[in-house]
């Protein structure tokens, strides 16, 4: 709790500093329940304030954490906010001072344009393209403002409130031969659009399409390569083949029925995806969860972290040419899944966390299999070190490949193991503990070189630390309820339903409609399997979200690929892609 007050004090000073300096540019100041100051800026003052925050302010914001927009046209609860049709939102993060700030700019139709900031933070490039694709907001000065999520032939901007959400509201899908030709032609990579030359003074370049279906890209990801022989001159990642409209889905589902969709965002993270979402809602609703709930949640999150890292470990070895490790690691992964299934009832996507608690209490005898796993895993991990990490060929394939520095990582929005491999000891669980992580004893593994090998080594060590956390959960599982007594807990407590007609009505409403969350905005972030995952929820005082923004780590990580792979061979690119540990659902949502 102490850290939060310090945090808020720091940001209060900052708001004062900015108000004194940029009095004309700041239109309004707000603060919601997550404590992050929100500054509304004028469009003309945006770049001025942002470049000040980037370099000169007393608190320097190294990372553009998120950039998105809100279609405000049908929002009713906008107390204290300047008039706006579309609001562009910038979320900045300071690592040195450990604080956040959110900046907003109001845009009125028909002039939906705003200056780009891709020269201030390089990772703004993709975020601005996404904003254009989803909302139709023009970023003037952007180097290549094209669609990123949807096919180039798409008409309309899906996250606008007047765009249909359901496929069944639109024309039935058909794929005729001619149409397929048109779509394929639109996907053709044209080097000139990306400012690439087809030849140099000495050689003619080859352009190679890797993906969207290729065994090494872990799903549907395409990357166009500019090659001089086998040397990579440049690369252009092309994403959006896995865009499932998770954010639009949030506006359609009720608060409660959206939980299963979060599981499928980082589909290797399972219930860990539920956590930032339910915690964000709990914060908006003012629900305090019991200790037992916190520990159960931490335990399951760490089990999923192990499952995800094991899959990474196996496929990483496979991608650099070792075929057998994955067969060993999936044995352990199955053990972890057996435990998860015995507790949650499903393997990959249990959707088991609830607003104000979890779905069920732990079954009797839950700890036996976990203790077996805890005793069994360390020896196996040691074997794997010998098989993979100490293997000379793996070392030669991955050491010194795909190197980036801490500074570069922050510029490009890299978080998680990719950031820690550069030597920065920054873990959200330690820096801003949530769900009771402050009570656990664990270390934050780091490495120094920031290459492919180190990214793998950090994750392997994280498996050991997760085992440590799980052991503490098993040994110290607190007794008590698995649900909060708060009236907005969903589903509500059954015992309270039949006291009188009032309680029965309330119970009926919160089961049929789901909870009604008071108007407001909140950001909740966690250290997910792949980096920082945050949910930015806007409630308009209804039974569902007005805007759901999911900031995922993999999106930022993929954008960096060209930076770190230039000058390497194609085979090294495969090692780099493997070491990033992404899943496409986490990129395209």
């Amino acid at each position, binding site marked *: 709790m102490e850290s939060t007050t310090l945090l808020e004090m720091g940001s209060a000073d900052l708001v004062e500093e900015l108000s004194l300096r940029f009095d004309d540019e700041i239109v309004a100041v707000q603060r919601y329940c997550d404590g992050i100051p929100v500054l509304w800026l004028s469009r003309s003052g945006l770049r001025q304030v942002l470049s000040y925050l980037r370099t000169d302010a007393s608190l320097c914001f190294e990372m553009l954490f998120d950039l998105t927009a809100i279609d405000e046209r049908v929002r009713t609860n906008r107390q204290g906010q300047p008039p706006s049709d579309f609001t562009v939102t910038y979320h900045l993060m300071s690592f040195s001072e450990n604080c956040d700030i959110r900046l907003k700019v109001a845009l009125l139709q028909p002039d939906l344009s705003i200056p780009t900031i891709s020269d201030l933070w390089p990772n703004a490039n993709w975020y601005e393209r996404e904003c254009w694709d989803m909302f139709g907001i023009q970023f003037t000065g952007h180097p290549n403002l094209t669609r990123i999520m949807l096919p180039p032939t798409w008409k309309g901007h899906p996250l606008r409130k007047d765009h249909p959400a359901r496929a069944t509201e639109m024309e039935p*899908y058909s794929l005729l031969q001619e149409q397929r030709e048109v779509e394929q032609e639109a996907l053709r990579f044209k080097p000139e659009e990306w400012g690439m030359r087809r030849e140099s003074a000495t050689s003619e370049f080859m352009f190679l399409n890797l993906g969207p279906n290729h065994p090494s890209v872990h799903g549907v990801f395409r990357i166009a390569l500019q090659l001089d022989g086998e040397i990579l001159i440049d690369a252009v990642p092309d994403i959006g083949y896995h865009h499932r409209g998770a954010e639009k889905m949030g506006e359609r589902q009720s608060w409660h029925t959206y939980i299963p969709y979060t599981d499928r965002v980082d589909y290797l993270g399972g219930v860990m995806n539920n956590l930032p979402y339910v915690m964000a809602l709990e914060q908006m609703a003012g629900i305090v969860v019991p200790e037992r709930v916190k520990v159960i949640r931490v335990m399951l999150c760490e089990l999923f972290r192990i499952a995800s890292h094991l899959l990474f470990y196996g496929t990483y070895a496979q991608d650099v040419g070792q075929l057998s490790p994955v067969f060993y690691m999936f044995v352990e992964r199955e053990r972890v899944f057996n435990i998860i299934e015995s507790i949650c009832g499903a393997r990959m996507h249990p959707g088991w966390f609830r607003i104000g608690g979890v779905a069920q209490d732990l079954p009797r005898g839950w700890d036996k299999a976990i203790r077996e796993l805890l005793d069994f895993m360390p020896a196996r991990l040691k074997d794997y070190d010998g098989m993979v990490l100490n293997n000379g060929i793996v070392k030669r394939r991955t050491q010194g490949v795909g190197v980036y520095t801490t500074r570069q990582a922050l510029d490009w929005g890299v978080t998680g193991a990719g950031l820690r491999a550069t030597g920065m000891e920054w873990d959200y669980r330690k820096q801003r503990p949530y769900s009771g992580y402050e009570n656990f004893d664990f270390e934050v593994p780091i490495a120094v070189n920031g290459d492919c090998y180190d990214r793998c080594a950090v994750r392997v060590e994280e498996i050991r630390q997760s085992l440590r956390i799980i052991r503490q959960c098993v040994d110290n599982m607190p007794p008590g309820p698995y649900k909060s007594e708060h009236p907005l807990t969903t589903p509500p407590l059954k015992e309270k339903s039949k006291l009188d007609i009032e309680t029965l009505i309330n119970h009926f409403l919160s089961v049929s409609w789901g909870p009604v969350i008071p108007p407001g905005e909140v950001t909740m972030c966690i250290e997910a399997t792949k980096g920082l995952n945050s949910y930015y929820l806007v409630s308009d005082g209804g039974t569902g979200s007005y805007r759901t923004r999911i900031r995922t780590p993999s999106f930022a990580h993929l954008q960096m690929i060209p930076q770190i792979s230039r000058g390497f061979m194609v085979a090294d690119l495969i090692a780099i892609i493997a070491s990033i540990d992404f899943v496409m659902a986490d990129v395209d949502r």
Partner: protein
Amino acid sequence: MSWQLERADEAKSPTPGSSAFDDYIRRNVMMTRLEDMVAWGRKNSLWPFNFGLSCCYVEMATALTSRHDLARFGSEVIRGSPRQADMIVIAGTVFRKMAPVVSLLYEQLLEPRWVISMGSCANSGGMYDIYSVVQGVDKFLPVDVYVSGCPPRPEALLQGLILLQESIGRERRPLSWVINDQQIYRKTPDPVQRDLRRADRIAATEIRSPDEL
């Protein structure tokens, strides 16, 4: 087509006319139609294409690796190129941006080719009734087996594969239906597993409590 194996040295030549002689002939001479023989071969040598779209791909990979080991059913030669494969598992959500690519890959598969639709998204769009998702891969591809689940367990995929193998052994291509100049061929649809098992399932009187392991 039925067949069995016997060690060559064990059988001594019986005299013609006796019942042992008939057995002997049956064990050593196989009578079949060519197309049955080919179907038997196809059934036991499916070469799947290494293809996945989303979450289901991970469960498909789980089915291939240790513990579940798809190799036991003679379908483990995963190919990276569609030109070397004859079976595609549509494992995951079919996106509008991806659909032209999926359809092209299907056409590049060797004929005769088979399609397993794995998971709710590929079956019908599932929980993603959303602008960017095609509501089922059967909107543009013929599907032979639908495996339900979100994602289906590896065991479910194995069962789907066995069902496909059985129907390849029984049926000539096409497995679904075609219209051409000569005929309209329409296969009677295979029964849904849910219907076949319904009687067993509703007969269950005791269901294990989730509170106990």
